[in-house]
Each structure stands twice: as C-alpha cells, then as structure tokens.
C-alpha cells in the first residue's frame, strides 16, 4: 500500500461529511484561547480561514506579502463563483455540481473532496450575501446567474466582472472585524521563507519583513498555507507579479509531498502577447464566452490579409468565417471547457489561421450578441425593430452593462474598440490544479501543516471548471478547515505556547539567512528577470499547451542548466536590511527553477493526455473523437505525489489511487 492515506471517511458519499463532523473531536471555547494558528496568505482561502478561526476563538497570526490583505490575487478573479443553489430551476443539484466538477477535471480528482465542495457551495452564497457582498441581481431583486464553460446549467453568481474583488473584500471585512477585536494579528509585507518542524510537526514559520529586512520567527500549534498558485513558473501568466511557489516549495522541502505539478490550466480568453517587454498577461473573463463567438477566417489568404492589415475582420463575409468551436463541438459550442477551447485555438493558429501580427490570436466577436440583445430591447420597449442603428445602440448598452469593465480593460490595453471590432484573444497560463498534496482533512504529509485554496491539489483534477476556484477557496476557508483543524488541535490544549528558541527554529532561520546572504554577495552579471524569462520560454514551448516526450526531456535538461547558471551568475542589487524587491524576487525565481524541473518530470511520467495535460503521443486515432485527447485510465487513474529528495531529478513519486464509486469513468465528450 502507498504511504499516502487520504483519510476519506466511510459511508455513502452524500453522508460522509455530516458523519465526519459528528464524530470529530472538538476544542472547547476556553481552550481555543490557548491555541495559536498561523495562516500564510490572505486570499479567499486564507482570508476566510483566518477570520473563521479567529471567530471560533483561536489566536491567529496571518501573513501576506502585499501591503494589505485586500490585495491578494483573488482580487483579480472576474467571472464568478459557482454554487448549487438551483435558483434558476434548471435542474442543478449538489450531485450535478459534483458530477460536472469530476467530469470537468477529467476524472483525476478525489470524489469525496469534490462532493463535500459541492455540498457546502450553497452556504457560501448565503454567507457572502449576509456580509454585504453586492452580487448582481435581476429586476425582481433576486440574485442573477450566468453560465460558465463545461456545464449545461446556470449556477454562476457574479458581481459584474469583479466577483473576486467583491468576495475578497467580504473575507477582508470579516478579517477586519477580528483584527479590530485583537483575535487576528496581521503581518502585511511579510514573506514566509520556511516552515519550522518540531518533533515532526509543523510548529511555525520563518518570515522576512519586506520593509525592514528583519528575519522573524513565528510559532504556532498549526500552520496553514493559503499561498495561491504557481502559474508564474511560466514567467508570463495571468497571475499577479508577486504570485509565487516559495511557501509551497519550502513546505515541500520540509516533507510535504507535491501533487500533480504538471496540471496547469491554460485559459483560452486572454489578451495576446504584444511584445518582448510584456510583464504579464491579462485575462478576459470566460463569462464573455456566454455571448461572444470565437472564429478565425476559413481561408488562409484571408487570415494573411488580416494579419498584414489589408483587410478588417468586419469586412469578412459570414460564410468565410470558421466558428471552429461551434463546428467541432455542436453540443457545447463556445462553452466547451477551457482546455478544449485553448487547444482548439492553438490548433487553428498553428495551421496558419491566426489573426494578429504574431499569428497567435483568434477573434471573440460580439456582433451577433449585440444584434440579438438590441432586437430584444427594441421589442420590449416597443421601438422600431428594423432601425439598424437603434438596434446596435440598444444591443451595445446591454453588452456594456454585462461586460463593460472588461471591454474597457481591453480597450485600454489594445487600443481598439471591442464594441466595433472583434476582440483578439489567445490562451495563457492561468491556474495550477497541481499543488501540495492534502488528505480529506486538508492536511499535508507534514503533521499540523495544512494547505488550502489554489495552493493544494485536491478538487479540480486535471482541469478546473470556470468559477470553481473561488468556490473552493471559500469552501476550504469558511466551512471545511475550521472543522478539520479543530480535530487535530484538540490534542494541543495542554501543549502551551511553542517556544521559538529551539534548535529547529535556529536551523531554519540560518538556512534562510544563508540564502539571502548568498544573493546579496553573489555579484553576478545577469538580473533575476533574465533567468525568469528564460525559464518561462522553456516552460511555454516545451511544457505548455501540448507536450511530448522529446520536448519534456529537453526541458528537464535545459531548466537544470538555467538553474545552475542562475546560482553562479545572478545579480541582486542593494542590501538585505531594508526594502529590496529584487532580493524577494530572487528567492522566488530560485524556487521556480526547481519546481519547473519537477513539473516537466511529472509531465513526462504521465504519458496519457488528461484535462489540461495534453500529450501528443496520446490522442484518439479514429472515430468521432479523432484527434481529441486520450486518457489512459488503466495506467493513470492516480494522483502523482512527489517526495523531495534533494535535486528535483531525485524526487520520488507516490501514487494515490483514485477510486470512482459514484461516477462512472467515461471519455469526456463535448460534441
């Protein structure tokens, strides 16, 4: 048997969580006051966890690297959050959300965790509304919903294109209440640089104060990592500039297994790269696919004419356009899951149908939506339905209320008006399904160390459905971790405060200090970004949207070389005893350079295609699904959890077999 114990409770899937909650050990309120918990990260996952744990009575210390918890990258989520409320009466239910998530994840997630997520999802919406989160409403004053890719119901709640912002501000407000009461001590502009284990248990962290440069020791009875995803290993992604793998990687080095590092989501609707100066990519929410139609020209010569500026997209006749998603996937059309939509865009562009200067862009067109809405409005208002200009005007107004801020964002970046000419989009790295391995309790393989939100691996399998990350973050933080961590902490009521003068803290602090000193004194010739960009190129070209054995083997070698050169030749200016962004960045890139190699190694081992992981060697050769990704359930229905053994190449894989008792494994078909 594998050494991984997922600790899934017994019983029928629908009763597992309730039975579990009825049986766990509780900590009485007076004793909670004797227990300290560290929460690293204040995004949706960490913010909601910190607030809830403090409310329950624990003493919480929370950390983030930004200048305020309100700025965690969850703030950038645009489209929405799923919940099985069935307010639309369209047949939604806990089971359907569970099913959609497992199927969307291409049957590579753990059933019990996903079911629990679906089960608590409805509570999230109730909770957020009670906190004053201003979700979109219809004219009757009730909550409005939209649809996201990969599903046939309308279960996504939203707040214009700023859902993540509003949810995070909700969690932030809950934190503020506890900060005001003194139950959370907030450490802004602090970066966690190591986990401290005492007697095999996680008992604290080492953090650097990013303003003063001080290295600090913080102890607690349990440590929660809510530090987000690692998409920035690609250099260019839709993640914030500071998003990093450091916290997770340091935990990995201290014994936390890293699961499925190669599962990455490449989002189909991002603004294309404009040049070498590019520092990050901007997402255009998936919600746009509710109304936008994706196409490229049918003929290569038209694509060529558009690329060279000889023709405008609006001049191309309807019959000369290839709405390739509608053509290939009639059932789901423009709303196929992200991995499918991304690969289809790449396929068209690689075949020479791309539409911008670089040949790496497709159109997302709102002209038909504007017509449709315009006619509807004219009808409702009793106006002339044949007045073309009026229809366009009315239609644009509707599109504006739905997506106004996204259109504005697009126009500011690209300098084109998307109401008049179709948007250009291209896939970009967006989300990492892989992450720290956790059991049903969300505990890692290090006792007392938990991982929640995007930082863990558990709920989305090989591909995440839109609007499900926000749901998972808040589910973990508000409704799951507060129970599971209590069960663990019940053994610590007599432990007393954890001292920070032990040899373990000493050793961890020294490791951190040594690395910082190394960077400051290295006096190399190349900047941190130089190495980060090179790593990103290898990742994108060889470990990106489509992968093969040769490319992956090369990537492993190349990443190792870049890493060696980095340590020899990186230049970090300034000093260690003050604000120094380059120093912080150097530490993050050092960890990306190790993760990147493990990532490629994981992708190489998994020679099947599943979800966001597409191996060119593994495609359907004939039949209706010809050319589509081919899973290999017989050999790969497992989670690959990697144990650190020094160099990434020495990492050892442990397999958690995935058992499907409630959902039948099937080929994902969106045809």
């Amino acid at each position, binding site marked *: 048997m594998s050494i991984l114990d997922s600790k899934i409770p017994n019983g029928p899937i629908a009763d597992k969580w309730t039975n579990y909650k009825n049986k766990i050990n509780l900590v009485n309120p007076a004793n909670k006051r004797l227990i300290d918990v560290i929460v690293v990260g204040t995004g949706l996952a960490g913010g909601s966890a910190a607030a809830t744990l403090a409310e329950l009575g624990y003493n919480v210390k929370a950390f983030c690297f930004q200048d*305020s918890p309100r700025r965690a990258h969850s703030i950038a989520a645009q489209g929405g959050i799923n919940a099985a409320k069935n307010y639309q009466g369209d047949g939604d239910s806990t089971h359907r959300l569970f099913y959609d998530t497992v199927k969307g994840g291409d049957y590579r997630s753990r059933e019990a965790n996903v079911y629990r997520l679906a089960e608590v999802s409805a509570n999230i919406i109730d*909770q957020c509304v009670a906190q004053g989160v201003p979700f979109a409403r219809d004219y009757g004053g009730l909550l409005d919903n939209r649809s996201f890719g990969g599903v046939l119901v309308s279960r996504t709640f939203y707040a214009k294109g700023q859902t993540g912002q509003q949810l995070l501000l909700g969690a932030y407000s809950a934190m503020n209440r506890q900060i005001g009461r003194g139950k959370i001590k907030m450490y802004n502009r602090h970066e966690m640089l190591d986990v401290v284990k005492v007697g095999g248990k996680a008992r604290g962290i080492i953090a650097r104060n990013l303003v003063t440069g001080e290295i600090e020791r913080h102890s607690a009875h349990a440590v929660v990592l809510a530090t987000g995803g690692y998409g920035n290993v690609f250099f260019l992604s839709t993640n914030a500039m500071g998003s990093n793998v450091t916290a997770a990687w340091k935990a990995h080095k201290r014994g936390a297994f890293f699961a499925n590092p190669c599962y990455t989501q490449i989002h189909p609707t991002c603004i294309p790269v404009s040049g070498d100066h590019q520092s990050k990519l901007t997402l255009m929410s998936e919600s746009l696919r509710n109304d936008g139609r994706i196409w490229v020209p049918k003929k290569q010569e038209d694509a060529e004419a558009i690329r060279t500026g000889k023709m405008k997209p609006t001049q191309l006749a309807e019959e000369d356009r290839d709405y390739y998603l509608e053509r290939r996937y009639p059932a789901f059309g423009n709303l196929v899951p992200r991995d499918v939509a991304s690969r289809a865009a790449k396929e068209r562009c690689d075949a020479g149908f791309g539409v911008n200067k670089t040949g790496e862009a497709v159109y997302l067109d709102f002209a038909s939506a504007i017509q449709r809405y315009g006619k509807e409005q004219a009808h409702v208002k009793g106006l002339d339905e044949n007045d073309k200009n009026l229809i366009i005007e009315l239609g644009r107004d509707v599109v504006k209320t739905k997506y106004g801020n996204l259109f504005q964002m697009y126009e500011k970046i690209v300098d084109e008006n998307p109401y008049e000419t179709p948007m250009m989009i291209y896939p970009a790295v967006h989300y990492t399904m892989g992450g720290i391995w956790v059991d049903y309790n969300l505990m890692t393989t290090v006792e007392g160390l938990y991982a929640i939100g995007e930082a863990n691996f558990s709920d989305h399998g090989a591909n995440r459905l839109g609007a499900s990350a926000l749901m998972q973050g808040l589910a973990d933080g508000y409704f799951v971790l507060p129970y599971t961590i209590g069960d663990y902490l019940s053994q610590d009521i007599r432990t007393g405060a954890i001292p920070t003068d032990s040899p373990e803290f000493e050793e961890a602090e020294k490791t951190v200090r040594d690395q910082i000193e190394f960077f400051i004194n290295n006096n190399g010739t190349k900047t941190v970004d130089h190495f980060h960009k090179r790593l990103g190129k290898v990742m994108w070209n060889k470990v990106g949207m489509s992968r093969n054995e040769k490319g992956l083997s090369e990537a492993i070698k190349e990443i190792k070389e870049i890493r060696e050169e980095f340590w020899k030749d990186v230049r970090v200016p300034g000093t260690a005893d003050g*604000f120094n962004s380059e120093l912080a960045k150097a530490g993050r890139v050092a960890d990306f350079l190790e993760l990147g190699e493990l990532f490629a190694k994981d992708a190489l081992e998994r020679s099947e295609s599943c979800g966001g992981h597409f191996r060119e060697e593994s495609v359907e050769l004939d039949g209706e699904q010809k050319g589509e990704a081919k899973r290999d359930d017989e050999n790969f229905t497992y989670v690959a959890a990697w144990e650190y053994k020094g160099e990434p190449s020495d990492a050892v894989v442990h397999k958690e077999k995935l058992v499907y008792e409630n959902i039948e494994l099937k080929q994902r078909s969106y045809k």
Partner: protein
Amino acid sequence: MNLTLKIWRQKNAKDKGKMVEYPISGIDGDMSFLEMLDVLNEELIEKGDEPVAFDHDCREGICGMCSLYINGEAHGPDRLVTTCQLHMRKFKDGETIYIEPFRANAFPVVKDLVVDRSSFDRIQHAGGYISVNTSGNTQDANSIPIEKEKADAAFNAAACIGCGACVATCKNSSAMLFVSAKVSQYALLPQGEVEAKDRVLNMVHQMDLEGFGNCTNTGACEVECPKGISLENIARMNREYIKASMSK
C-alpha cells in the same frame, strides 16, 4: 520613444529624498507605464545601481497596489485607469515625465515611490464590516430581495480598490471618498443597516486619528479616482454621519 524621467528617490522613511533624472530610450507605445519602469530598472541593475522601488502586483487595475503621481496627476494623465493600466502611447517622444510617490501625512514614504497606506486598513478595522459570523448558518441568500438599483449602487461604491489616489490628489489629503465608498456600500444594503450608526461614527473617528485632512468639496478626488467612485458617496456619508450623531 525617447524620454526623460525625473523620479523621486528616497532610501527609506528617514532619508530626505530628491528627484533624480534618467534618460530612457526605445520605449514602445504598447508598453504599460510599469513595463517602462521595468526597462529602466533592468538597465539600472545591469549598471550596478539600485532599481527604483515601486508598488505593484496584479498589473490589471484591480488590486490597488500600484500608485505613482505622474506629471502632477495620481495614476497619470489617462482617466479611469490605474498606473499599471496606463500605456506609453499616452506620452510623446521627447517628453519629460515627473514621477513621484502618493504624498500625504497619513501615507509616509517607505522607499522611493513606495508609501505606507496601512492607515486605510486601520479605518476598515474600525468598522468596515458587517458583524456576521462565518458559521454557514445564515439565512438563504434570496430571502431578502434587494432592488436592482440599490444593489447596483452598492456595487458601484464597493468597486473602490483602496489605492489612495483620492488622498494623493486632494489638497487637504482627505480620505473622504475612500471612507464614504465603504460606508455607502453597507448603507445601501439591508444587511448593513443594523450597525450603520456605529460604523460611520467609528470609521470617521479613525480617519481623523490617522491624520487625513478635511473635505472642502473640491471634487478633485472623483476626477482622479480610477474606479469612478462618485462624490454622491461623500454626500451620503455626510447624511449618515449627521443622522448617527444626532441619535447618539
């Protein structure tokens, strides 16, 4: 484009600080303002100098981390954008650009262009929340319908990103636009009513303690606010404040 940058350099909070001139060339109109600073910083590091410190994270106008006072305007010359969304096509070849931090007594400089805005957080600790526990035992989300118009107005107020441009722009360094946005969001929702009085009194009290100035209705904040937060919020907060003070 070739440009001349005049940038505020200050080692730390104690240092006096000064403007330093940097020529820069090869800037493309499609670059964002911060990407232009990235180019400068790469050059500085390669030369062995210290790069210019500035705050940023999301680079898409939503986290509120970036700041910068550019040619005398918070977030620069464009409207309804943050500095990270400002593009170089808004500038002309040969232009001189002045880049300073957001200045206010309540926003001390940390280094170069980075300021400390924790005063904003402390105002929120004083009352920027609805006291509801996160137990999951709240009532169904649709049990209280909210008029669409009010819900939308609450959303518009809630869109504030806490960047501090309103303060940096105001000749009195007043934080009224920021505070009123939060007060308004809750005042417009039935969920916020219960604590409305204490909330506005406590938040305004903290705002005064932090050393923000008074509002004299110049309206400069509304013009520079990247999220279009409206002055109506200040009027609403004033009404809430008077109502609350009278009933105390």
